[in-house]
């Protein structure tokens, strides 16, 4: 974080307001996008809004680097009466990630959308996209348990519709979106239930106030069950095995922009909230960590193995990537449930790495599918020659996913295993090793199809994606490489996140 301490990107008056602007900016932008007369205007609104959110996120990150934690009381009321934003290092990291992916996604949508969504719906689509962006950003910034639910729903309601829009390409998007809506709403309601129990036991919704009161309260069934419901509810959104049933269909069916954005941010923000509750709200070393270690960690390990195997046997590229996401969430949760500084920091690092690589992969799939409607692995045969740049970016993302050295994915796996070794959790090391091996198998299959196979006879020739699609794709893939060679930026952010949550002592 020391990197950011001396950086000032905004005038002081704006810096003080930056936290709320990160969230309110996209909300206002969404309205503007919905009001835009044409597809082009809506796209420009989307890009400008996302850029603004990124700018403000950077301002918040620099402020967090200086202050440690940034508080922002909304409505001028001090918490717990009013709602407060509370941004710690982890929240700032996530915001930076979400806003960056948001901007790249917005840029990408300029061309990618036209082949997937009717032009007349672009304005609404961009509005929905910005609402999702606002929702995820709000989720990682809020310091209020119920406000988090509201932002969870802001992002979710938008997401359901955006996934369903994928019907224009593939009608299976519709049942997938419906499924997602059912799962997601049950999850959100579980979260509300859990918050209800915590509220019943503490009388407050402010997370800081809640943690103070929980520490004084000691063990209580309402509190423990409350956490269980919160983790289960958020676990649906985070696609923690076995609550991931909605994910493969949704990622496979959604328009590629939505898949990119969801894969890179949706599960991540839910994971963030779980971490927040377990490590920040619940007392250190208390029930929350026990719950993670005893319930979540075994499930995460199961996900890392089972879903990797499922990915190996999938035929459709997007579904392979989707199952891979579930498995990778397992990796992340394994790191987090170690509950050590090393493990948590590795989990956060992995989270960022995974967001970037999956973003590049889904963008790559979208770029490759612009000229040919390639869906299955067979239809990907030979695309490596026909669309070399898109394929190369895809390959970089895949390499990072597989953990090839000098990509961010390698460092992520490295720090995860190092964290597990440090914590003495050898079974985690073994799981990670086997999971990585399985990852290599399906990644190898994808790359073999693209680069070492001749196109199927009769397949239409693919063309390179347009420039506007290629640039964000290459940037996204480039980030995976850059951070793989010099990881000081994400490393320091994740380290600060972990020490902010559980201290550097352990």
């Amino acid at each position: 974080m020391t990197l950011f301490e001396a950086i000032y990107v905004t005038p002081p008056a704006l810096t003080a307001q930056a936290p709320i602007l990160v969230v309110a900016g996209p909300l206002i932008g969404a309205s503007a996008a919905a009001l835009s007369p044409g597809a082009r205007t809506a796209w420009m609104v989307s890009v400008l809004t996302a850029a603004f959110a990124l700018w403000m996120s950077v301002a918040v990150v620099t402020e967090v680097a200086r202050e440690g934690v940034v508080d922002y009381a909304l409505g001028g009321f001090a918490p717990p009466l009013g709602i407060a934003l509370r941004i710690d290092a982890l929240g700032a990291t996530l915001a930076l990630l979400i806003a960056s992916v948001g901007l790249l996604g917005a840029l990408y949508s300029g061309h990618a959308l036209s082949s997937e969504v009717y032009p007349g719906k672009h304005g609404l689509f961009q509005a929905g996209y910005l609402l999702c962006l606002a929702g995820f950003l709000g989720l990682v910034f809020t310091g209020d348990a119920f406000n988090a639910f509201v932002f969870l729903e802001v992002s979710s309601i938008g997401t359901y519709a955006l996934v369903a829009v994928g019907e224009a390409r593939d009608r299976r998007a519709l049942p997938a979106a419906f499924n997602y809506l059912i799962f997601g709403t049950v999850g959100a309601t579980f979260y509300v239930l859990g918050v209800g129990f915590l509220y019943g036991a503490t009388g407050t919704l402010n997370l800081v106030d809640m943690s103070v009161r929980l520490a004084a309260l000691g063990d209580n069934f309402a509190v423990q069950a409350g956490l269980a419901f919160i983790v289960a509810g958020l676990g649906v959104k985070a696609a923690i095995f076995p609550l991931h049933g909605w994910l493969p269909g949704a990622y496979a069916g959604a328009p590629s922009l939505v898949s990119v954005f969801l894969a890179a941010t949706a599960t991540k923000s839910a994971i963030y909230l779980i971490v927040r509750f377990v490590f920040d709200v619940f007392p250190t070393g208390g029930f929350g960590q026990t719950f993670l270690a005893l319930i979540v960690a075994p499930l995460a390990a199961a996900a890392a193995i089972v879903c990797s195997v499922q990915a190996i046997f999938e035929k459709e590229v997007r579904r392979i990537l989707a199952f891979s996401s579930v498995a990778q969430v397992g990796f992340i949760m394994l790191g987090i449930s170690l509950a050590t500084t090393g493990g948590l920091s590795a989990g956060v690092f992995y989270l960022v790495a995974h967001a970037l690589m999956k973003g590049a992969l889904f963008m790559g799939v979208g770029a490759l599918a612009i000229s040919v409607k390639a869906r299955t692995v067979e239809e990907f045969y030979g695309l490596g020659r026909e669309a070399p740049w898109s394929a190369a970016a895809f390959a970089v993302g895949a390499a990072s996913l597989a953990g090839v050295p000098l990509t961010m994915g390698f460092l992520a796996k490295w720090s995860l295993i190092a964290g597990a070794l440090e914590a003495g959790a050898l079974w985690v090391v073994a799981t990670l090793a086997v999971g990585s091996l399985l990852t290599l198998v399906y990644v190898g299959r994808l790359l073999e199809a693209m680069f070492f196979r001749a196109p199927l006879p009769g397949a239409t020739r693919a063309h390179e994606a347009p420039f506007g699609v290629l640039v964000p794709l290459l940037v996204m893939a480039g980030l995976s490489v850059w951070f793989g060679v010099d990881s000081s930026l994400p490393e320091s952010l994740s380290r600060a996140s972990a020490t902010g949550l559980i201290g550097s002592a352990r």
Partner: protein
Amino acid sequence: MNAIALEASFALNVALLLMLVAIAAAIAWTRSLVAAILLMGVYSLASAVWLVVMDAADVAFTEAVVGAGVSTVVLLGATLLVRPGPVRVDWRRAIAPAVLVVGVGALLVLAVSGLASFGDPSSPANAHVGRSYLVETPNDIGIPNVVTAVLASYRGFDTLGETVVIFAAGIGVALMLGFGPRSSLPQPPVQPGEHHVVLRVTARLLIPLIILFAFYVLFHGDLGAGGGFQAGVILAVAPILHALVFGLHATTAAIPAGFVRGVAALGVLVFAGVGVVCMANGGGFLDYDRLFMPRVEAMIPPGLLGDPTHSHNWGQHFGILLVEVGVLLTVSSTMVTIFYGFAGRATHDVGSAR
């Protein structure tokens, strides 16, 4: 304390809850979709009554309007569009959910055993922040309805989010179902209700009354049960009634779908704009105390609300009013968008994709 009054209200509470359980069981039991939907409406009405017993007047109002009104209409509309057969029941696929439900229920029973007794005034939930709102509202906000004060000011950010959720739902429905009937479609030769003179006259009379009532509910929100949401839903009834009696084409001609969509976005802009104005005046986002610059606030006549002796936080008053207007705009236009979406779909040949 007077035990009899408490026990009487407790007995009412128990009776209503048992009634709700019976209705829920009937919903689970029935194979008719229409019956289930109507039972849902009854359920909402019964829970509205229960909510009044629980002193939640605002929630009761909303539940009656939204739960019994909007939800039922939307469900019925969707049912008409999909023309389903009877719900099939397969006992084998009921086993796993039953096990799940029993498990989750057991966990919930365990959880509530950790909660304070029902009605306990000293429970953490009632003693901490909840009580603070009651104590502080007269000073901080200065309006009688504490629920509105919390909703629009203390937790105004939640309400902004809530407005955005509604807006998002409008976007979602519009993306799915389009924006009312396409202009290319031929106008139906016979308007529905064309020959029902009584209906038309009654509707013409009712619509202004509905609009009037909506604004009453909006402005009354500070004082009693009511506010932007309820008012928005009621306001939306006016064009919906118009469409039902005079035909969707007539309504969309008067209030185009694009306009409605714009108003929905405008509502969010109004709400967020209030927040931004507060920020521009040096306060925090949605800090209504900074809604006006001091110079402007001094210009407001003390007797504006008819009671010059009572101290008013003008910023809070106007801030709450403005955001309620924003909520009203978004909610009413989203409700109309949803109606346009479902109703417009009906004029298409259902069953052919797009």
